[in-house]
């Protein structure tokens, strides 16, 4: 494999890791607050449809993004209602919302555009187009680093950089702010937070709102940057890969970045089986590459590579009085 191919794969890695990263950080906020959310997939899908549709109708990718965030927030609110207010089973609620999103996106897209459940292709300002970072062309001559900068780091759509920026921001919010401290506490020991006079319900709803916004960004990126429009089931299990990455990262923001890049790298490799074959000298079946993130997650869950310990109060509805 030559350097140019490697750069190409890394470039794809970054593009494919972006939705995973948004969704993974989204899951991080809700799970650290003690709410399991396996509905990341559904929220992303709903956001992708809403942003694809609105971006087409208004011609603005930004309005599309806002619509995506809105749609995702609605789903987050239903999840909150079921799992916080009515203390229902969080896993079941997540499963239900995934189905709901899977069906309703196609229904709405079909009703709006009548193109078999897709939104019409986007172009121009309705998409987030690639941005060339400063000096990308001037530095091209620098050996090794120049092409790396030009091909891999520069030339992505805005949400890619936004996702990367979310990593330090999430770390800072979680570890350096009062809100973050309370959020982590409510996921470990909600009774203690309650005793301190802070609203458990309020904190958890706030966490779910952040989850909604981040999933909205993930979906909007899928429909308006990675691809040009929404297609049925376009998230294709990314919500679950993000969940896997979250466990892989042991619920920490910076580790989440590496996990998402790794899983993005696997997805990029699955697109280039020829390269994989050339490197390992054996024919590797593409499905194996597809399944690799899931297999790795199971290995991590089994505790063979360090122990992944979830937030202690995760999945438990909080009941104030016993």
């Amino acid at each position, binding site marked *: 494999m030559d350097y140019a191919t490697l750069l190409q794969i890394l470039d794809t890695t970054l593009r494919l890791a972006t939705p995973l990263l948004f969704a993974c950080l989204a899951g991080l906020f809700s799970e650290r607050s003690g709410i399991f959310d396996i509905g990341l997939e559904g929220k992303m899908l709903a956001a992708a449809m809403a942003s694809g549709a609105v971006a087409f109708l208004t011609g603005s990718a930004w309005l599309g993004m806002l619509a995506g965030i809105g749609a995702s927030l609605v789903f987050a609110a239903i999840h909150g209602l079921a799992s916080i207010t009515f203390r229902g*089973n969080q896993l079941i609620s997540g499963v239900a919302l995934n189905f709901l999103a899977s069906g309703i996106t196609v229904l709405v897209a079909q009703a709006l555009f009548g193109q078999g*459940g897709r939104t019409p292709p986007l172009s121009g300002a309705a998409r987030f187009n690639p941005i060339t970072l400063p000096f990308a062309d001037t530095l091209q001559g620098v050996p090794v680093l120049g092409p790396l900068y030009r091909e891999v780091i520069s030339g992505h759509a805005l949400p890619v950089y936004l996702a990367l920026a979310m990593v330090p921001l999430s770390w800072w919010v979680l570890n350096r702010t009062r809100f973050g401290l309370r959020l982590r506490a409510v996921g470990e020991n909600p009774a203690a937070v309650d005793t301190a006079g802070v609203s458990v319900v309020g904190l958890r709803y706030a966490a779910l709102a952040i989850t909604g916004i981040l999933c909205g960004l993930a979906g909007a990126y899928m429909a308006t940057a990675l691809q040009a429009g929404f297609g049925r089931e376009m998230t294709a299990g990314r919500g679950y890969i993000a969940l896997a990455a979250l466990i892989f990262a042991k619920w920490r923001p910076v580790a989440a970045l590496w996990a998402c890049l790794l899983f993005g790298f696997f997805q990029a490799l699955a697109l280039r089986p020829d390269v994989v074959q050339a490197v390992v000298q054996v024919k590797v079946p593409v499905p194996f590459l597809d399944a690799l993130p899931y297999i790795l*997650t*199971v290995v991590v869950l*089994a505790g063979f590579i360090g122990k992944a310990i979830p937030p202690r109060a995760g999945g438990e509805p909080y009941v104030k009085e016993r």
Partner: protein
Amino acid sequence: MDRLPRWADVALVPLISLLLAAIISALVLLSIGQSPVEAFDVMVDGALGSAYGWGYTLYYTTSFIFTGLSVTFAFHASMFNIGGEGQAQLGGLGVALVALALPWPHWTLALAAATLGAALFGAAWAAIPAYLQARRGSHIVITTIMFNYIAAAFLVYLLVDVLRPAGQMDPASARFPEGAHLPALNDIPGLNLIFTKPVPANVTLFIALAMAVVVWAILWQTRLGYQIRAFGKSEPAARYAGINPTFIIMVAMLMSGALAGMMSVNNVMGEAERLLQNSSEGAGFIGIAVALMGRNHPFGVVLAALLFGFLYQGGAELGLWTSIPIEMRIVVQGLVILFTGALDMMVRMLLARIFALFRSRQPGVA
């Protein structure tokens, strides 16, 4: 919160949940400019209006009984098995390997062997997540989800690279031999007077009904069933009573996987007669809705499976005869899971208020 009377708990709560799901579904249809009444008519007519429609409805029902029982069995040990989909696909592999292994002389032999194969493969696919939950504390929900994806990838690999006969383009196994052909309901003397046209519903329906009885007997009539339910209610109490948690988790999940695997006898052997990609078509997930709707009781599961059979066949008819996309049935499925599973408490609170209202009106009681 007041306790509800038993009849309300068993019958009224699921019915109200269903009603709420139906109302929201109707609103969804209205909002996309369709008529809910017309849609319902098409569904009833297509799924229940003719013997032919019933033949499809019962075919789906058969699959959903298996997957519903699968989820139910695990639920009683407080295990949430979302892996029914993967286990069903592996079950399909078991069916295909058995059916293709021999030139079967008679379908009864093939059916018995294929059922066993499906159950074994389904159980094997549930065994790893079960073991990881029991011994290493990995969350069963996450591992079974991961195993769904691994199963899908594994089957794509097998169908493209291994099982596909030479010269065939589409990724599927070879056709099953003639001896592995299961009689459909229209082939059975007596029933063929009702089902005059070929229908996909087949003898597997009777296996499904028998399994409902078996599951009921295991859970409520045996020592093992008592242990499983005790473990599901309270793990510490079960442990204190000397019940082995590893054993219970393994048994419950293996049985659950076996039941999910067995559904493939219905679709792979009874209908397609070869193994296709994504053979279970989401039936594993519908098991969750069926189990919730059926209140985790085999009798309820059979009724709920029939309801979802109607929903699936009716949904397909919608896709055929109206401009409502077939995905409508996924919306209804999601809503049923949401209301019966996650918003259960909301319905109960509502009912408790209403009951309290009636009680306080009776003189002398309040």
